[in-house]
């Protein structure tokens, strides 16, 4: 090792030297070794080196302000500002102090289709596997699942609150109305899927709709669903009660069942993958729709194979490992393709 550079060094020369400072600030085995050897060769420098080192160490023992308690809050604000940018901020803040979150709404709609209105000047789209929180103009929040999009008007002052959703979303809706007998036009909150209109009446609910199929699960409170477009006049609208799960497929009528565990519908918002007594087909559908994987079944594997019990994992890899171990089948994941073959 070459120590010639450091032969004439004094206390402040060491403090001015990047390599000396870095062996304390960003230590590594190599750097430590170098300075140990240097001291062996130049014991006369012990005093200067020790003093410089002690100063840096003493100086670095200082208080730290990381502010991690507000990390999420500041992030939410940043998200909100980015979305609201360019939109004039003319809000009645007095009114907002009275508002409470009254409705939690979970929506999913078919991919594709969707119609255009001039008022929809805001569009947010998520990539496969991406989950993003959207703050709507009335401060209602929407958690968008992967491969989904939402459109709405930037400014909701004095107009009906309307959003159009494709894919899957979970809404927490600000409830403006305090007199349920007289609902004003601009107090309404309506979520449009391709097939249905969902009107929030002060409640929390949950909808999934992909491939021209809408599924609406109500968690708490009350919602009204009606058919979108021309069929609206021919078919009556439907009021849902908590735990109700409404399924509508293309042109058919809505069928309503009671759910034992409606909260399972929104586990994805917490980045959880939860399945209960699910078939391979059902799991493959989620991997395809929400994460963008192509799932290929070997001809000797039935897609109807069922995994008894509950799976609750956070990553696709974990999910695949459990399926493979439970059903004794081989699963290989290559980039965006998943192949299921016999062992």
């Amino acid at each position, binding site marked *: 090792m070459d120590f010639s550079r450091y032969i004439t060094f004094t206390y402040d020369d060491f403090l001015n030297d990047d390599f000396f400072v870095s062996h304390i600030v960003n230590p590594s085995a190599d750097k430590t070794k170098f300075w140990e050897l240097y001291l062996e060769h130049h014991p006369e420098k012990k005093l200067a080196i020790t*003093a410089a080192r002690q100063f840096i160490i*003493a100086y670095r023992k200082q208080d730290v302000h990381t502010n991690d308690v507000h990390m999420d809050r500041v992030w939410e604000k*940043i998200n909100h500002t980015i979305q609201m940018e360019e939109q004039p901020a003319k809000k009645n803040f007095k009114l907002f102090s009275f508002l409470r979150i009254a409705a939690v709404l979970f929506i999913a709609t078919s991919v594709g289709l969707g119609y255009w209105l001039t008022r929809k000047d805001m569009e947010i789209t998520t990539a496969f596997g991406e989950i993003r929180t959207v703050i709507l103009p009335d401060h209602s929040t929407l958690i968008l699942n992967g491969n989904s999009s939402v459109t709405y008007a930037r400014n909701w002052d004095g107009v009906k609150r309307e959003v159009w959703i494709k894919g899957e979303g979970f809404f927490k809706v600000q409830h403006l109305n305090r007199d349920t007998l007289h609902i004003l036009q601009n107090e309404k909150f309506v979520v449009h899927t391709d097939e249905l209109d969902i009107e929030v009446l002060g409640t929390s609910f949950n909808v999934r709709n992909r491939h021209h199929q809408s599924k609406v699960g109500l968690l708490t409170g009350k919602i009204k669903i009606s058919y979108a477009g021309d069929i609206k006049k021919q078919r009556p609208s439907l009021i849902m009660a908590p735990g109700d799960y409404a399924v509508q497929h293309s042109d058919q009528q809505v069928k309503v069942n009671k759910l034992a565990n409606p909260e399972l519908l929104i586990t994805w918002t917490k980045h959880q993958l939860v399945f209960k007594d699910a078939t391979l087909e059902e799991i493959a559908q989620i991997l395809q729709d929400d994460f963008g994987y192509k799932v290929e079944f070997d001809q000797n594997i039935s897609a109807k194979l069922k995994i008894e019990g509950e799976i609750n994992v956070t990553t696709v890899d974990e999910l695949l490992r459990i399926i493979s171990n439970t059903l004794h089948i081989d699963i290989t994941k290559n980039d965006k393709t998943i192949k299921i073959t016999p062992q």
Partner: protein
Amino acid sequence: MADNLSKYVTIVDTELWASFKEGDWHAYTEIYNRHFKLLNNYGYKFTKDVELIEDSVHDLFVKLWTNKSSLSVPVSVKNYLYKSLRGDLLRKLATHVKFVNIDEDHHDFMFELSFDHQIVANEEELALQKNVKQVIQTLPARQQEIIYLRFYEGLSYEEISEIMGITVSSTYKLLYKGIGNMQDVLDVSKLSVIWVLSMMIKGAL
């Protein structure tokens, strides 16, 4: 999802920055996650107004996203963020000062460390800590900041001058002054006594 996000954790800052420039929201999120605490800690040296620091961090990240396509890829993402935060924070603080005292002509900023919550092992260390604290506090804000960037963040003179917007030679001069001031008070010979003592104790064990 977790599966999807985890791949971002291992990416180096500048690659992350390149993805973020392309509009990758995950990359942008990861940049925020990596630097939020560091930025707050740095900002806290200039002001104890926590909300003002949060405002600066907020403004900085909104601006990044809005201007992402026109940004260049910095040599060090952290240094770039430090420089931006510093500029914004000092501007905000200057307008505050003006508002309070309109006659005050100079907008000199403060730079303050705290050692109050540090646990020290023994009396020698306590004495040293006390000395360091005393000396540091007598230095002008700029010198203190250079010392911080140098010995806490481990930055080079070039990097410090870039963040603070001063020339490399004045950075060097200011730090040299700072170290010189400290040397007078710290008394290098006293430090060596501590060192000799500690070696003797080690040898005896």
